[in-house]
């Protein structure tokens, strides 16, 4: 049974399914009940499942996470919404020092099957703190799983998988793709939550990305055809753990790797992937892996964000670089 849904509606459909299938599932967050969420992702859920299961909370991110932990102790399966990426930091201690560590701390006695939904990423012309990409902080934290979707089908399937997982999961939702439409098969058998997907196959260059830039990567791959270049696009989907086997198989085939993400360069996921793939595929690499990312600046004002976000042209410039073709840095050296 398939329908056309936007990515945000697909998440909502997944949440509805989860609430219906397991009465221990709870939703918690600011404005998620009567308002249905600032992006309307949870629209209609309070009406359907009641205020005890779809809870509007006071404005306190740390408390939302902390009480979710207490509820998990009591055997519930909370799904917490952080309204915007930039507001996750008050909850950082509860997420990193508590959520990620509780299973380890208690020798496996305590499970924290909590899902944290976070709209993330830029490209929406917003004011400060509404376009962040904080995934690396959490991918770096032991005990947490981090995933992100790029299509409505994945949004639907992956939110259900995240909720079913007995591990804490950060579910990053690419907010600029909330209105993108796609086919969603509500009964589809999904791939494992931790798996990456080869979205379009190719032979010359492996282009790895996730979340909001998957669509950009696909555009880049299509444009590259005109240059006679065959780009293989991989949607990581899972950022912790990363499905290195899929990426490795691809790079062994192409010998060239470009990684792109909105988050700033230093210490980002791209660095982890570049290092791991260099380790695994050193003897197959034709060129050094390239990262196309945001700069090491705070996310800029709306009028400047096009000079921060990776786009089709910057991606293809890096593709040229790994192919040994002329590119923006040909002959460039640091001063």
């Amino acid at each position: 049974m398939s329908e056309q849904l936007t990515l945000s509606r697909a998440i909502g459909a997944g949440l509805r399914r989860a609430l219906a299938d397991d009465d221990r599932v709870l939703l918690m967050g600011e404005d998620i009940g009567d308002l249905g969420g600032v992006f309307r992702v949870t629209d209609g859920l309070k009406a359907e499942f009641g205020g005890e299961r779809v809870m509007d909370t006071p404005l306190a991110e740390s408390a939302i996470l902390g009480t979710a932990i207490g509820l998990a102790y009591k055997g519930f399966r909370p799904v917490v919404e952080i309204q915007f990426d930039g507001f996750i930091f008050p909850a950082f201690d509860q997420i990193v020092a508590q959520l990620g560590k509780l299973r380890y701390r208690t020798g496996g006695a305590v499970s924290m099957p909590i899902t944290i939904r976070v709209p993330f990423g830029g490209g929406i012309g917003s004011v400060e703190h509404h376009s962040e990409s904080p995934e690396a902080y959490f991918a770096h934290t032991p005990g947490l799983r981090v995933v992100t979707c790029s299509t409505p089908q994945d949004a639907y399937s992956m939110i259900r998988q995240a909720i079913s997982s007995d591990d804490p999961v950060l579910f990053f939702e690419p907010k600029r793709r909330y209105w993108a439409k796609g086919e969603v098969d509500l009964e589809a058998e999904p791939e494992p939550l931790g798996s990456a997907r080869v979205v379009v196959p190719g032979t010359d260059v492996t282009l790895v990305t996730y979340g909001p830039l998957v669509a950009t990567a696909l555009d880049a791959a299509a444009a590259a055809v005109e240059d006679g270049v065959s780009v293989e696009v991989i949607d990581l989907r899972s950022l912790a753990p990363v499905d290195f086997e899929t990426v490795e198989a691809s790079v062994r085939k192409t010998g060239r790797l470009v990684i792109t993400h909105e988050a700033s360069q230093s210490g980002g996921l791209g660095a982890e992937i570049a290092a791991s793939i260099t380790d695994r595929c050193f003897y197959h690499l034709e060129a050094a892996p390239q990262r196309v990312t945001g700069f090491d600046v705070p996310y800029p004002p709306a009028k400047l964000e096009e000079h921060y976000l990776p786009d089709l042209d910057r991606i293809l410039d890096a593709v040229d670089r790994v192919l040994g073709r002329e590119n923006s840095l040909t002959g460039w050296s640091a001063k």
Partner: protein
Amino acid sequence: MRTEAALDSHHDDADMNEWPDPQEELVQILTPEGQRLEQPMYDRWISDLDADALVALLEDLTVVRRIDVEATALQRQGELGLWPPLLGQEASQIGSARALRKDDFVFTSYRENAVAYCRGVQLGDLVKVWRGTAFSGWNPFEVGMSTPQVIIGAQTLHATGYAMGCKKDGVDSVAVAYFGDGATSQGDVNEAMIFAASFTAPVIFFCQNNHWAISEPVGLQAVRPIADRAPGFGIPSMRVDGNDVLAVMAATRIALDRARSGGGPTFIEAVTYRMGPHTTSDDPSKYEDRASHEEWAAKDPILRLEQYLEGAGILTDEVRTAVKAKADDVAREFRAECIGMASPEPMTVFDNVFAEPHSALERQKQQYAAYLSYVEGSTR
């Protein structure tokens, strides 16, 4: 009972008629000299305590102090890495913990080893954290108590959430959060009170004001009595003499009753004193006024109960001997468990991070295992 009404000296709230009237003074039943005061409001909550029960309380206080002393010695002997003494706070912990039911759930800081003792934590399990063998000595669900929390105040949110869960499940279990005076400055503690009030959560905020947060005096954390805060959040509160085991028990029972009957949260400030250092690595001589120390020594919780029981003809030589023997037994067992504890196997460093398989961790684990077998003589 402190409520917003109390601060306005207004006693007309109909709902409050069931509860004892607000008092500005510390709730106290036993004076430091061991004299029992008449407190009709509170006496009825502990009227069931007969001679045996009182002796049992004395034994509890004596045993946990003995454990504390033994643990401190073990640290000085190199058997424990660290120990946070609860010396002086025995009555706060015993009086409250002994009021709880098995199905209640406790979320503590790191100093509540007397509470752990009451909840049924094995002596050897108590020691694991401080010896460095594990972060947690016990399964929280077996004893109804979380593992020690090192992040100050974080546990208050967990307790509040748990209490919200009890309410959703329609059970009358209560969650208790133990924390200190320093913790009340943390955002999490204040956020917890907001959530507890907004959701009428059956949670007790039990604050042991032991006057010190390492070297910072309570006056830095609060310019007025800590118990005054909770009414600002809409939570009734009590300020009790934390060295008076009877007063503590009475106050806790009041709070439990309120919670179990749908009345929501209560804040209890148990005023006591940290007679030992913050931990065995601390040196209070650098910041503590000796006079305060002496003043509080005179308010010792065990001494006053002994004096009361002696005056009541309950504390006979026989009882004394039995109590001491029990304490010595426990100390001996505690020491033996500690010294005999084996270190964990190296590869267990990878256990219990995730519920489901994790490819990156699996790879690291395999590579480390290969490394260990490659490096000769590396087994510990």
